[in-house]
């Protein structure tokens, strides 16, 4: 299970590489969106290894935070206000 956790963390670093390098603004946003979903998987595996249930609660909250952040950034990309 530790090996699987390491593979997920390597995936997170690949996402961070794309977020740093990405030639355009939407590239960075895609990388941050994917990173948000990856963190959910990391939380789930950590909760399974350590047998702590509250990591899944953190994961459920993280899903919604990542979703709302991505929707707000996409609205910014379209050139609209947040109140539209």
């Amino acid at each position, binding site marked *: 299970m530790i090996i699987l956790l390491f593979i997920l963390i390597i995936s997170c670093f690949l996402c961070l590489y794309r977020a740093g390098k990405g030639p355009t603004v939407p590239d960075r946003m895609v990388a941050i969106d994917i990173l948000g979903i990856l963190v959910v998987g990391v939380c789930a595996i950590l909760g399974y290894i350590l047998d702590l249930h509250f990591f899944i609660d953190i994961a459920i909250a993280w899903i*919604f935070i990542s979703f709302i952040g991505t*929707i707000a950034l996409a609205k910014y990309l379209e050139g609209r206000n947040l109140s539209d």
Partner: protein
Amino acid sequence: MIDIAGIIIICIGVAFTLFGCIGLIRLPDVYNRLQAATKCVTLGTCGIMFGIFVSSGFSGLGVKCLICIPLIFLTSPTAAHSLARGAHIFGVKLWDESRMDEYKEYKSKQ
């Protein structure tokens, strides 16, 4: 036995996630990257959740993981769709070898 089945499902999910992130690095275009990364990572994370549910059963951990699956399946494609639309309106060009741009035709028809 049921533990081994759960760990195999978790391994499949982690493999999907890794391939999605490699696609995020390797592909040439915003839309290609979005397509590869979103689908693979969504399915991979849901695989991880389902594997944990299989191996831990109807305990607190397993049921919470089962609740996570529809949340991810609802929120992640919605976010990806709005990001793709936003990127197209923002003016990101397609890759040189892309053949079709149906959203552009749709916008020009309106």
